[in-house]
């Protein structure tokens, strides 16, 4: 077992955890957090794949690294949008979950 | 010479570790939120300072070393702000309950 594999397994577990939270948590903010965990696990797996591609004197394949950076920024923007929608929802309805409406 | 510097590094870093430990223990042992804030803002800043001090012989001079020192100063600034910020929030709340000292 190497460190890289270890982080790979960690990433897999994070994906599972994020998925669980996304399904089970009723509150939207908790769902947003779960989505972030899920995304982070996915990117961690991608990072592990990058690390396994260490070559040419670089510790980690630069192509996935660049993609991860792009995905991180996109995920942040998505979180902002989700939080903004949530804040509007709370303002309008006083609720922070999507459960009771059709 | 290298040996002496290495010994210096080891001593300083280990001392730094002690302060990090003290910060943690203080955070866990101190009785209320404000006293815990003392532990947070004082001990770990010193710990970081000692780690930086210990690392100074191990990096390139002048820029590498000065950069580390600048980094510690930044951390000190952060610590010096966080303590009063949180302290103010906690105190304001506490003041609402009991008459001011």
């Amino acid at each position, binding site marked *: 077992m190497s460190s890289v594999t270890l982080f790979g397994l960690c990433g897999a577990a994070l994906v599972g955890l994020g998925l669980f939270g*996304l399904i089970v948590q009723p509150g939207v903010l908790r769902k947003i957090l779960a989505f972030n965990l899920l995304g982070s696990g996915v990117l961690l797996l991608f990072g592990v794949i990058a690390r396994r591609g260490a070559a040419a004197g670089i510790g980690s394949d630069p192509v996935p690294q660049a*993609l991860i950076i792009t995905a991180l920024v996109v995920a942040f923007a*998505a979180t902002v949008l989700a939080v903004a*929608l949530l804040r509007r929802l709370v303002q309008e309805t006083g609720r922070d979950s999507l459960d009771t409406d059709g | 010479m290298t040996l002496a510097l290495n010994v210096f590094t080891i001593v300083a870093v280990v001392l730094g570790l002690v302060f990090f430990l003290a910060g943690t223990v203080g955070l866990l042992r101190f009785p209320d939120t404000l006293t815990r804030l003392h532990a947070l803002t004082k001990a770990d800043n010193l710990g970081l300072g000692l780690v930086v001090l210990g690392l100074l012989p191990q990096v390139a001079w002048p820029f590498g070393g000065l950069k580390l020192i600048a980094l510690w100063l930044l951390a000190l600034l952060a610590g010096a702000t966080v303590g009063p910020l949180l302290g103010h929030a906690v105190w304001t709340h506490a003041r609402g309950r009991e008459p001011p000292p």
Partner: protein
Amino acid sequence: MDSLFTLTPPAAWGAPLLVTALMLPVAALMLAFVLGGRHAERVVLATLPIGLGVAVAIAAAVLHQGATLHYDLGGWAPPLGVSLHADGLSATLLLTTAVVLCAVGLYARADFRVPSGAREARAPLAFWTLLLAVWAGLNAVFLGQDLFNLYVALELLTFAAVPLVCLRGSPQTIAAALRYLLFALLGSVLYLLGGALFYGAYGTLDIALLSARLASGDPIAPAALAAAALMTAGLLAKTALFPLHLWLPPAHAGAPAAGSAVLSALVVKASFFLILRLWFDVMPDPLTHLAAQVLATLGAAAILFGGILALRQARLKMLIAYSTLAQIGYLFLVFPLVASPAAAPALDLVQAPGAWTGGVLQLVSHAFAKAAMFMAAGLIAGALGHDQVRGLGGLGRVLPMTVFAFALAGLSLMGLPPSGGFAAKWLLLSAAIETGQWWWTLVMLAGGLLTGGYLFRVLAPALSTRGPPLTLVKPVERSRELVVLGLALCSVVLGLVPLSSFGLVQIGRLGATGIGLP
């Protein structure tokens, strides 16, 4: 036919056209955003015809060359670089998108005007810029050849589509948008995970290279299987295939009519298009056959489930939204019909050209028909002040042209001749019988009956001559009715065109990449 295309640009022009198609909406988006105010609308209305021209030129170039167009961005070839590609299907969808968006743009002018006295208003600026963004995202999806580039394109689409849902700002639409966003983000992230795994196993994200490496004869890496499964799951969530459909009806019904038209007609097709590409262009045949059964089963469930729920809706827009669920189901029947091992003894797939054409035709005719329906529903709701199905009695007498357009679009959805929907469903039916998969025909027929049922609920009272005459709260502009009618006619005319002229959609399919005729 050939003489028609001597006017098309030489092949060398074809490839840069792809860049134009991708970047025109992006540039227009930035311009519209900076100029703001009333200029946003002007920029959109000026850009849309140019974009339509570019789409026509690409279709002509593809048809002229009879082969896929390629462009390596920055001159960097895959796997390091990213390339664009346009086969017949891409060209068809680019064209469909441009046509629908032109209609939506003309239709939406009345709804998204900056009020006099104001320099700029919230909804118009958001709508026009988001419309361009949807366009950019769709073109990027249809032209992309790189899995991660496609991820960015999907995100572009998400960020454009979600605010469209809640442009009205009511609590219901905010909740719908939030639910849509969460589903879409889950879909994106699963898709991204799939891309990462493909890269980990094969070191490339380029669809053509990936397909070649997967087909190289070595056993398929477990990562590739997991990747395909994850990507499909993610894309299904974005396409709203049963049982991942929960977000769609409130979102599509809550958006303003022009937005609903774009979302229902085009945006859900983008993720479907990627599922098509994943299974037909990336994954090797035997796996596709397996996946096809699963996908088609879900599609069949969606046809029945969506149809039944559409029957029970009280609001017109909800009814149309549920109809989208069902019509998406038809698209997934394409998989087993195109990738059928039944006609060939070995596991080699036979691509049934008829089924493929039928599937694409369903995609296109549904896009026209559904856009027309939502826009007609918007006119009706605006004129009546409500969109309750119960209150539509006698509508045909006050809004004859709108109801006629609605009925024409309905013809296509039901699959009645002479519409495009009929041609599509007929091709799919005959493919099902040819490949011995008669059970899908039952589903399609049942779906047709359900469609007939829920449209009858709308059209029967609307066309009845009894009852008191309706009073309109607001007059309907004739030009907007004409736009809707035009789109509805498009969906019908598709059925009148001889099938042989749909050669375009086959280009790039037959033996060009991945699987083909033996």
